[in-house]
């Protein structure tokens, strides 16, 4: 590459030698935004991982929640996932994009004001989101838990981000769009669509809503969203970052630019269809499951195209990797990406999924991605960017190396026990005695893996310790330097017309007209609004296919909302797959028609506790009462937290009418005018449960939340039992 080195000394040649009139333009890069997003990335990484550590400890020491609602696993886990995905990785994306896009486009960000609105808007969303999740305001859909006002704020800030990046691309001084930019564009467009479609919801109060879709439909939309959140929030933007920062850190061009183009386009076309692999063996129609499997298996090709391109970039430079902690982080990140994207298609095969689904195997899989791919690439980028924008060397290369080893050993200690736990537990679930009885109680399969949960939390602690070392290292670096807020630079402007292609292309025209571009962007956003109309037409089709399945009573509905508020779905599934062991353990397998009134669906994705799809009638009311007060009274050794507040909290009966009306508008067939009568029915049913409890010498307040929870749990799965002979 020696012949190119001379280019570094002077601004690159004018793009078109025929335009002698072109003058070098002086401008500057905005490093302030990069610095803000970098600090936010660091801050939220610590917060998100602390939440994860608390959740991990609670799995073997449930008392770690201090018996407070806000610190209970069901609420902490969504805070952990949201903080890591949208706060840590989200800010990491913005940091990397704001740094690299300016340099790739040879242009300052489109608007400093928008950059600032974007930054503070996103941080506000994170804080409001975290507080609302801890307070129990959740939509009950994994990775999309935030409630409707926050959803609207996210859409608004995402559009601001979009205007800012497209504005920058339009005023660029480099006509070629480097492959990283393509990844950024795909990220923006797809995340916008996913968020809007999955967030259709029917508000019934200022901070609560019901999902627009029900049951199977809700599950399909949710996992179409969920999988593509992995694809377009955790993968494509980070591949973009990889394509910029890995070559920069290694100071070598990417191995094959052609491969990067091919794998980019194939990746985005294939990824969007893979969602149903999260619903294998569920009540989702078979053909949709198979379609998801086929696309998931195909995904391995573009994914490994990206990994190999990253690793081969270091060909002949592995001696640098030995010396340079930044490259070490990046190499492990790309390797973890390769491992996770090999494992993903494998887990999508139905025979493997039959074993892995609902176990800790999935948790191990996602943490290879999160800790390895996203975490390590972010750390590499942070170590690379901060010294540069502060114009100072990194405080300690040695400490960065220590961080690397803490992190790497942390990942191994985190993931290996969870793979082990997932496989062990699944095998135990599926074991039968020679007489054909289930060999293990559910609880036995939980206590068996507790040592592995403990080891996992040690791995997590090590990883977090590494991050704290990084915080110290970067703090000392920043202290020693001085932020270059506006980094002066120069470049030739784009020629007014490209002569190579004769006729002027419409895109050329629009590039010089940011206002028109803004209008077009708004049109693009409006398409989302039009899409919003479609579900209203779909509602009529929510006709129950099983006549015995009836809407929830008002008390059960209130109980279901408490179930969602406490995040029970984080540990309990409501989906019995058609396997011998599941049918033997939980009852008849789940049918699509059973979920038509479930706004939102509550199938879950993990069985830390047993499935609840047919919980109704299995235990007396008093069992549930005592079990909620302290699960260990009824099941010694259980790791479920206590829910004492359900015994004293009062049911929010003021909301009943609004909830019934919201359900009616979503197509749930309560008779008209029922909203006014609902509380009377609620009281009658609650009185019945109170009397049942009184027979077992348990006294409850007339409106205690526990009554609603018991009503809901006793209803689960009973409709279909009643039609059975």
């Amino acid at each position: 590459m020696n012949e190119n080195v001379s280019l570094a000394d002077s601004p690159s040649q004018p793009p078109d030698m025929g335009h002698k009139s072109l003058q070098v333009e002086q401008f500057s890069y905005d490093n302030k935004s990069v610095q803000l997003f970098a600090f936010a990335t660091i801050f939220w990484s610590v917060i998100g991982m602390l939440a994860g550590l608390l959740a991990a400890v609670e799995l073997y020491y449930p008392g770690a929640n201090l018996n407070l609602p806000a610190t209970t696993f069901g609420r902490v886990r969504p805070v952990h996932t949201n903080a890591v995905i949208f706060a840590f990785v989200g800010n990491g994306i913005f940091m990397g994009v704001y740094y690299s896009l300016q340099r790739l486009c040879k242009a300052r960000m489109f608007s400093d004001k928008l950059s600032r609105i974007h930054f503070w808007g996103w941080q506000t969303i994170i804080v409001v989101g975290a507080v609302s999740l801890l307070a129990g305001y959740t939509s009950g859909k994994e990775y999309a838990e935030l409630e409707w006002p926050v959803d609207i704020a996210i859409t608004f800030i995402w559009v601001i981000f979009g205007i800012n990046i497209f504005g920058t691309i339009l005023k660029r001084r480099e006509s070629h769009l480097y492959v990283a930019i393509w990844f950024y564009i795909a990220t923006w467009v797809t995340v916008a669509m996913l968020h809007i479609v999955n967030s259709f919801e029917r508000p019934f109060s200022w901070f609560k809503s019901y999902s627009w879709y029900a049951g199977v439909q809700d599950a399909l939309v949710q996992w179409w969203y969920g999988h593509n959140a992995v694809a377009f929030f955790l993968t494509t933007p980070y591949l973009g970052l990889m394509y910029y920062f890995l070559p920069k850190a290694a100071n070598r061009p990417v191995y094959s630019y052609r491969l990067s183009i091919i794998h980019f386009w194939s990746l985005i076309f294939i990824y969007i269809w893979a969602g149903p692999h999260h619903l294998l063996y569920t009540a989702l129609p078979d053909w949709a499951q198979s379609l998801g499997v086929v696309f998931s298996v195909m995904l391995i090709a573009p994914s490994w195209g990206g990994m190999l391109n990253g690793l081969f970039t270091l060909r002949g430079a592995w001696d640098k990797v030995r010396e340079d902690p930044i490259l070490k982080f990046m190499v492990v990140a790309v390797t973890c990406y390769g491992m996770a994207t090999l494992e993903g298609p494998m887990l999508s095969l139905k025979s493997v999924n039959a074993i892995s689904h609902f176990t800790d195997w999935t948790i191990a899989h996602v943490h290879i991605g999160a800790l390895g791919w996203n975490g390590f690439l972010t750390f590499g980028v942070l170590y690379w960017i901060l010294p540069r924008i502060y114009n100072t060397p990194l405080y300690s290369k040695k400490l960065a190396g220590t961080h690397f080893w803490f992190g790497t050993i942390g990942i191994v200690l985190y993931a290996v026990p969870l793979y082990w736990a997932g496989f062990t537990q699944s095998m135990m679930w599926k074991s039968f005695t020679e007489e054909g009885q289930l060999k293990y109680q559910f609880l036995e399969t939980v206590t068996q893996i507790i040592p592995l949960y403990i080891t996992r939390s040690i791995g997590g602690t090590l990883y977090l310790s590494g991050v704290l070392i990084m915080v110290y290292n970067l703090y000392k670096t920043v202290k020693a330097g001085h932020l270059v807020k506006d980094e002066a630079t120069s470049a030739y402007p784009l020629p007014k017309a490209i002569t190579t292609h004769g006729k002027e292309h419409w895109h050329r025209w629009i590039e010089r007209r940011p206002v028109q571009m803004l209008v077009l962007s708004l049109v693009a956003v409006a398409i989302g609004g039009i899409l919003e109309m479609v579900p209203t037409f779909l509602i009529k089709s929510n006709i129950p296919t099983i006549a015995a399945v009836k809407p929830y009573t008002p008390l059960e509905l209130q109980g279901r909302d408490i179930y969602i508020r406490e995040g029970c779905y984080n540990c309990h599934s409501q989906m019995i797959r058609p396997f011998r062991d599941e049918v033997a353990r939980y009852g008849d397998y789940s049918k699509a028609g059973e979920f038509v009134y479930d706004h939102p669906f509550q199938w879950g994705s993990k069985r830390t506790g047993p499935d609840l799809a047919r919980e109704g009638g299995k235990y007396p009311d008093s069992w549930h009462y005592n079990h909620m007060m302290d699960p260990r009274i009824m099941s010694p050794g259980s790791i479920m937290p206590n829910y004492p507040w359900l015994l004293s909290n009062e049911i929010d009966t003021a909301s009943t009418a609004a909830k019934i009306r919201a359900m009616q508008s979503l197509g749930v067939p309560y008779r008209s005018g029922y909203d006014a009568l609902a509380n009377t029915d609620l009281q009658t049913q609650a009185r019945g449960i109170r009397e049942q409890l009184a027979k077992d010498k348990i006294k409850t307040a007339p409106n205690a939340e526990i009554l609603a929870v018991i009503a809901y749990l006793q209803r689960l799965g009973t409709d279909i039992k009643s039609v059975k002979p």
Partner: protein
Amino acid sequence: MMSVIILLLLSSISVAALFLAGFLWSVKSGQYDDADSPPVRILFDPSSKTADNILDHE
């Protein structure tokens, strides 16, 4: 029952169409005519003469 698939297909296909348009534009406008200089070009930043060897790994 599964009419939501229409919604998902509609939105997925419209995004795919958007990507297809992007792809066609990029090929037509000559974005990929040269696959050799772009990967090299990003390595040179005329402005950043500062702190280039932050780890002194010479």
